[in-house]
């Protein structure tokens, strides 16, 4: 199946969880927030939230800013 992550198409396995998708993308840091279809999924739920074909994810982190 294909999901959109930060507006890029990502091919992944059907029924993958957020946590496993992040691993697939080599994102291992806790310093992120994840939105699925505009709803924030708390980090505690990343390991049991199953993604679906066409889901749109945003994965954001902190950067330097004023």
């Amino acid at each position, binding site marked *: 199946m294909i999901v959109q*992550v*930060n507006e*890029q198409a*990502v091919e992944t396995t059907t029924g993958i969880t957020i946590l496993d998708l992040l691993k697939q*993308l*080599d*994102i291992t*840091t*806790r*310093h*992120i*927030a994840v*939105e699925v279809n*505009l709803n*924030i999924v*708390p*980090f505690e739920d990343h390991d049991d939230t199953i993604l679906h074909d066409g889901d749109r994810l*945003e*994965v*954001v*982190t*902190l*950067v*330097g*800013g*004023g």
Partner: protein
Amino acid sequence: MGTVVVNDLDVGTKEDSPLKIGPFELNSRLIVGSGRYENATMMRQALDLSGSDCITVAIRRERLHDAYGDNLLDHIDSDQTILLPNTAGCYSAKDAIRVAHLGREILRALGNPGADWVKLECLGDSRTLLPDPISTLEATTQLVADGFHVLCYTTDDPVTARRLKQAGAAAVMPAGSPIGSGQGILNPNNIRIILEYLKNEDPEYPVIVDAGIGTASDAAQAMELGADGVLLNTAIAHARQPLVMATAMRHATLAGRQAFLAGRIPKRLYAAASSPMEGVIATHPFPRNETK
């Protein structure tokens, strides 16, 4: 937390209270940004030298294909620092609210106390980076309802500042001049009026001069006017020597605050001699027409 002793060896230093914003108490009245540094080491050293215990950060998409294994938080001690997430770059209330919630989630996962506050920026124009007052007000109202302590970046317009306070902003942060412009405080009278309006019958209400600071005297001026704090980024990050400027800003903020607490002398048109006239050895060249 009690009072802050700036330098306990110096009996001339007036004891100061911490800067209180909502439930937060900051020992330093200088808040610094973490953007635009040449490299992470420079940033870390500058932030340390600034003496600030609160650092602003931005929220951006994680890079997927060029991950370099280096995160901002590898260079900031988030156990010792209160992070203040901003909504920089947002041009609508909707985007700013969304980014504020994402920031809250990141900081919550980190266990940083900054999870429940936000520096709200709702921009209205990309050249001047001036805020849109209407979407700023709209976002403030919503974020306050969502349980945020909202620190509002705004212009130096006293009417807008008052509306933001009425909407529940935890602090109002008028710009001295446009972001990153280094022009200093263009309209100190507006800052004075904001301070007067917002602190009327509420002297503890925090007003922070945010943006436009170019050099140390600008930070000192903001504090001398009676601002509760100064927020700046580029003035340090883009100084020829950021570490020296970070130190200068720390001293300037303290100096300005101490001068405010000490109370400046009124300005007067004519001179007032510092040395006594009595016993002076001098003939007077002009008729004595001065008043005492």
